[in-house]
């Protein structure tokens, strides 16, 4: 019974913790402009994150070391440094976006300007990272994040033409008034949002924090292969709701307030309140995961003691990084930069950093010295290789597409 509860809890937190500010904003933007015609990218992204999260989780469970702990050792300091710079920069950018996301969500509740809220939120995030138990932080925020299921209910309540929605999702096409390059830009952005590097950083390091062993592989796979796809369904529901409400108006979505409006249209104040709770939990949870991931990546590369499973004074440098990350995020957001713009940039730069994040995972997961009998099977290698090619194309196309489309204008 305890085992069943543990698996169920893991799946639920995986669902609730899947969506972050990047998914909220990008899916709503894409839904409003392209309907569900880019829904297949979300599906491809979910499959990709499942493939690599399973690999990194397996590495953590088998070796009891986080994947990125092994990269420098296995691939040398140059590759390790390239991986660190690319992944950590994007994770820090995502961290800034998530804190901005919490501030925007609270602004919707309080109507206090988000800039004034940022220092308090950054402090709260740091306090959670400093004081809260890892499992409490993950489970509470993940479970509350399930409130975003309200988007699925809203979509159903809005009564869309399901046949038309499904047809648009399956047909690789774009609305007549959009250009293919803009369509491609948003495809790359959605892909980047689904495969954000911090997700595997956090997943593999979290496995070490929770002391996974080979016996936990089944639970880990259940979380990944059931929880992540169901979490990804929330992304599609957000896109679908925006498509139904904003599509006919030919209006674009540029603010978090707009993201929540379809829920208000469908379910009224109660639905909107639930969506707001979901916004706060999803962005706060992701902010905690990103903050920890910044600390994990630097500490693991440098060979420092890291993690919340050791006393703070033992992992002092790790905790200093957490403090500095919160200070940097506060400083950047206090310049009044638009958090939505930071979010848009973070998902595109995510796409750029993907090969440097995911290639090393594939290498380490195939190394029998670390993995023993648990190296990748044929299917994992085939999928991993195909995804590396796709990831490479997305990474090469991201910046040129961002320039020529002026960030999807």
């Amino acid at each position, binding site marked *: 019974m305890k085992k069943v509860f543990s698996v169920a809890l893991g799946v639920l937190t995986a669902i609730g913790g899947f969506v972050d500010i990047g998914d909220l904003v990008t899916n709503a933007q894409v839904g409003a402009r392209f309907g569900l015609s880019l829904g297949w990218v979300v599906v491809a992204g979910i499959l990709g994150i499942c493939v690599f999260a399973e690999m990194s989780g397996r590495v953590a469970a088998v070796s009891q070391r986080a994947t990125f702990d092994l990269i420098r050792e296995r691939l040398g300091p140059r590759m390790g440094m390239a991986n660190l710079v690319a992944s950590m920069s994007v994770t820090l950018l995502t961290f800034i976006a998530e804190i901005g996301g919490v501030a925007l969500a609270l*602004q*919707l*509740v*309080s*109507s206090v300007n988000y800039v004034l809220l940022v220092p308090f939120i950054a402090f709260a995030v740091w306090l959670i990272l400093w004081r809260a138990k890892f499992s409490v932080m993950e489970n509470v925020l993940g479970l509350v994040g399930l409130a975003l299921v309200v988007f699925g209910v809203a979509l159903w309540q809005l009564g869309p033409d399901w046949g038309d929605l499904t047809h648009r999702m399956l047909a690789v096409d774009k609305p007549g008034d959009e250009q293919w390059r803009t369509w491609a830009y948003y495809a790359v952005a959605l892909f980047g949002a689904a495969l954000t590097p911090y997700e595997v950083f956090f997943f593999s390091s979290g496995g070490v924090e929770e002391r996974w062993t080979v016996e936990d592989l089944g639970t880990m796979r259940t979380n990944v292969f059931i929880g992540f796809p169901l979490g990804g369904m929330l992304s599609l529901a957000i896109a679908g709701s925006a498509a139904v*409400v904003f599509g006919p*108006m*030919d*209006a*674009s*979505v*540029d*603010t978090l*307030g*707009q993201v*929540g*409006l379809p829920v*208000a*249209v469908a*379910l*009224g*104040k109660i639905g*909107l*309140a639930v969506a*707001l709770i979901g916004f706060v939990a999803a962005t706060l949870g992701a902010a905690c995961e990103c903050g920890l991931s910044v600390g994990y990546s630097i500490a693991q590369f440098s060979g420092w003691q890291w993690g919340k499973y050791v006393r703070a004074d033992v992992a002092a440098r790790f905790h200093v990084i957490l403090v500095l990350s919160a200070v940097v995020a506060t400083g950047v957001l206090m310049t009044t930069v638009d958090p939505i713009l930071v979010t848009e940039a973070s998902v595109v730069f995510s796409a750029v950093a993907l090969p440097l994040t995911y290639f090393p995972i594939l290498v380490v997961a195939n190394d029998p010295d670390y993995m023993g009998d648990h190296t990748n099977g044929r299917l994992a290698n085939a999928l991993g290789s195909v995804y590396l090619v796709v990831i490479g194309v997305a990474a090469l196309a991201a910046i040129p597409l961002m320039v020529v489309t002026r960030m999807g*204008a």
Partner: protein
Amino acid sequence: MVWCLATTAVLSAGCAPGTPDGDSWRIDAQRAVSDASSAVQTAELALRQHDRGRVFDRYLQTVLVDSEEAVGKAGDTIGSKQPPRAERERYDAVTGQLDEAAGLVSIARIAVVDRETDRYDSLADRLESAAQALQRLDDDLQHPPRTSG
């Protein structure tokens, strides 16, 4: 001396806004009008939902403030661009309608902050008309200006 003159010439050229060609001005104008139209429609949608009791006051207020900023930004962006000679007439139309839309969204925001709920319905109607006008302008901007004669 030559370097000083060249530097002065380059700097003074940098101070004056460059004149984009007709196509690129039209694309910028279309983007500004489209952004403003989205913001105005969002403001209208939020007001109507509030009338039906589906949106909180503070949520509505934030949505209106965001819309006001978006319309203002759209107006500033296109207003600071030098229009090509052939587009002067439409420049006036674009900036005029954006100013009008910005003013209207500001009026709506003021009403929302002051909780003048009895005005929401008529303000939503006016926002709807403004959005329709912006959409007509957006359609018109898809084509080069009509030459007289």
